[in-house]
């Protein structure tokens, strides 16, 4: 039954590859995708209390391959399908549609498959397919810059997956199993020393895919974001990176003999802080959002590895909320770029006056990402820092302050008077593009207002939000806004040095070197200490 969820997007993709020049066919595809969203919602409701298991090829789970849902993966599949629905509506009028639509839905199948599969080798195959699809989507406009970044992306991901493949080979040698649950059982009987090498290999591969800091600047993902279409970028940072975080978490749980929790917590804090600092240095709107993806993934990792029940819940919920507000931000950034013809955050002015709806959605999403009270980000940030060590709590506050500073810059483009040169006779924003953006903006607000019931509904929990704690967080938010605005006004705005720092990036070779360094670091952390 679960194979259905992988096959349907592939069928939509093939259908669109043949008929996508026909507008009615595209509408039909969007309708099928909406039905698919309903199906994933049904799957989520079903797997809240029981696990679904499908045996592929009618062998049992030792010999065969199984697909399995848990509550968490069902929630993430729901998020994936919702965001793909939004993006497919958004790109209704996309030019050169044929390959674009085909690859988009193939990517959806791959991502859903990654959430479902529990087989180590299947994960490898799906990730490789996903890498190739993403590479082609990145190069979709066929400029030479896009091709270059696409090639760097592809090569780095191949190298990372070789690490992973080596690691699972080693695991197979030791345990003779591929199913995650069986591997976890078997690893309990194996010496800790023998596991250091496979652990380091697998974790390096997975950490690379999640863009954790020593490996982030590889992130040609980040670097090439401006080159790729907005719709693709929205998927990359809304969903695709989350599959990698999910796998990362899964492998961390498989190897629970290594208590590397503190290490990854520290890595998460560093990732988040450096990501937010690099975001402050950017002037390109898509680059700002791209570096915030690094920072928010760091925040998710902080939540998942802080070690308390509420922060884990907050980390999981932040996957959802980041998916919602970051997709909204990227989609509106696409509309704004389309209307103004530039991505320089200092040149774009007066979005609110020209396109009130886009402006309102941007405001909602910005309030979401900065963690304003009654918006979706505040709920996940509240849970992440609800009952953690004070050091972690303060790092979350400082990271939020950085986010506020950088989004003060971003929100500057909403106000002021539009530059006459940039207005021109650009067309009005397309209704097909406005609708999904508006829906996501509304979700930012509704998810915040009904935060507590939503968290409990999605993750089958009985978490409560303490009103006093929440009010305290709100107070910290308002103080941070005041401080952040001051820092932005007097230090960040138009600073030349910061702009130069923001241009720093690693090439292919240095990215590989950082991968090797991270590998060595894990070996030292786990094997020696």
């Amino acid at each position, binding site marked *: 039954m679960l194979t259905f969820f992988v096959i349907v997007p592939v069928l939509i993709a093939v259908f669109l590859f043949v008929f996508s020049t026909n507008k009615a066919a595209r509408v039909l595809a969007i309708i099928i995708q909406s039905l698919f969203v309903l199906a994933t919602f049904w799957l989520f409701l079903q797997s809240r209390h029981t696990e679904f298991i499908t045996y592929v090829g009618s062998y049992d789970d030792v010999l065969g391959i199984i697909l399995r849902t848990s509550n968490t993966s069902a929630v993430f599949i729901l998020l994936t399908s919702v965001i793909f629905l939004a993006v497919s509506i958004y790109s209704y009028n996309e030019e050169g549609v044929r390959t674009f639509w085909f690859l988009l839905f193939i990517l959806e199948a791959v991502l859903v498959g990654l959430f479902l599969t529990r087989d180590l080798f299947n994960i490898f*195959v799906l990730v490789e397919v996903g890498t190739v699809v993403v590479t082609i989507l990145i190069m979709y406009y066929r400029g*030479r810059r896009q091709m270059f970044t696409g090639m760097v992306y592809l090569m780095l991901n191949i190298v990372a997956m070789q690490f992973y493949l080596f690691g699972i080979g080693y695991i197979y040698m030791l345990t003779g199993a591929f199913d995650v649950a069986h591997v976890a059982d078997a690893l309990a009987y194996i010496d800790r020393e023998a596991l250091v090498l496979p652990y380091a290999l697998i974790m390096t591969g997975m950490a690379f895919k999640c863009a954790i800091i020593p490996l982030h600047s590889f992130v040609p993902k980040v670097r090439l974001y401006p080159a790729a279409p907005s719709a693709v970028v929205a998927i990359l940072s809304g969903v695709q990176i989350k599959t990698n975080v999910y796998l990362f978490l899964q492998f961390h749980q498989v190897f629970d003999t290594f208590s590397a929790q503190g290490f990854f917590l520290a890595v998460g804090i560093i990732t988040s802080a450096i990501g937010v600092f690099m975001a402050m240095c950017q002037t390109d709107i898509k680059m700002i959002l791209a570096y915030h993806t690094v920072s928010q993934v760091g925040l998710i990792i902080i939540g998942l590895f802080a070690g308390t029940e509420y922060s884990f819940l907050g980390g999981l919920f932040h996957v959802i909320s980041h998916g919602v507000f970051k997709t909204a931000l990227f989609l509106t950034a696409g509309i704004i770029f389309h209307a103004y013809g530039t991505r320089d955050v200092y040149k774009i002015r007066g979005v609110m006056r020209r396109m009130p709806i886009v402006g309102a959605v941007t405001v909602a999403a910005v309030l979401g990402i900065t963690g304003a009270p009654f918006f979706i980000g505040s709920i996940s940030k509240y849970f992440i820092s609800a009952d953690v060590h004070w050091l972690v709590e303060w790092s979350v506050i400082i990271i939020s302050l950085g986010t506020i500073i950088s989004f003060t810059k971003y929100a500057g483009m909403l106000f002021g008077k539009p530059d006459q040169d940039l207005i021109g006779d650009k067309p009005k924003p397309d209704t097909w593009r406005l609708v999904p953006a508006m829906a996501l903006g509304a979700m930012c607000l509704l998810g915040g207002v009904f935060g507590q019931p939503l968290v409990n509904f999605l993750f089958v929990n009985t978490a409560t939000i303490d009103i006093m704690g929440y009010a305290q967080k709100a107070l910290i938010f308002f103080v941070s806004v005041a401080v952040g605005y001051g820092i932005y006004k007097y230090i960040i705005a138009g600073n030349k040095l910061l702009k130069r720092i923001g241009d720093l990036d690693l090439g292919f070779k240095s990215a590989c070197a950082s991968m090797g360094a991270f590998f060595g670091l894990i070996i030292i952390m786990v094997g020696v200490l």
Partner: protein
Amino acid sequence: MIGALDIFAVALFFISFFGLITSRNIIKTIIFILTMQTSVIMFWLFIGSRTGTIPPIIDVGDIAYMYNLPAYADPLPQALMLTTIIIGICVVAINIIMLNTLFRKYKTTEWSNMAKLARKDHIEKY
């Protein structure tokens, strides 16, 4: 459990990785990616078949043989490595096609030159 062949595969893996870090030319990088894949595939095959094992083909006619099986090679890694080889070939082919296109546009195959030229390209159009 770890033999000389395994150590050879691991060594080749890290030598290729060192090559990736140091090679200045993109063609060399692709070659090192290939050797890296080869080393991983070798490692997997060594897991499946160690010295002293027979091929996993059972002679049905000889019943005494069937009840007294010697250690035979594990066929699963070989099957998986077929998939990996195919994926590897596809991915490297895409890489070479992209490099070919890029060479026509940038007239260089050096990492540093190409990165310098790419940074100058304005992508405001998109």
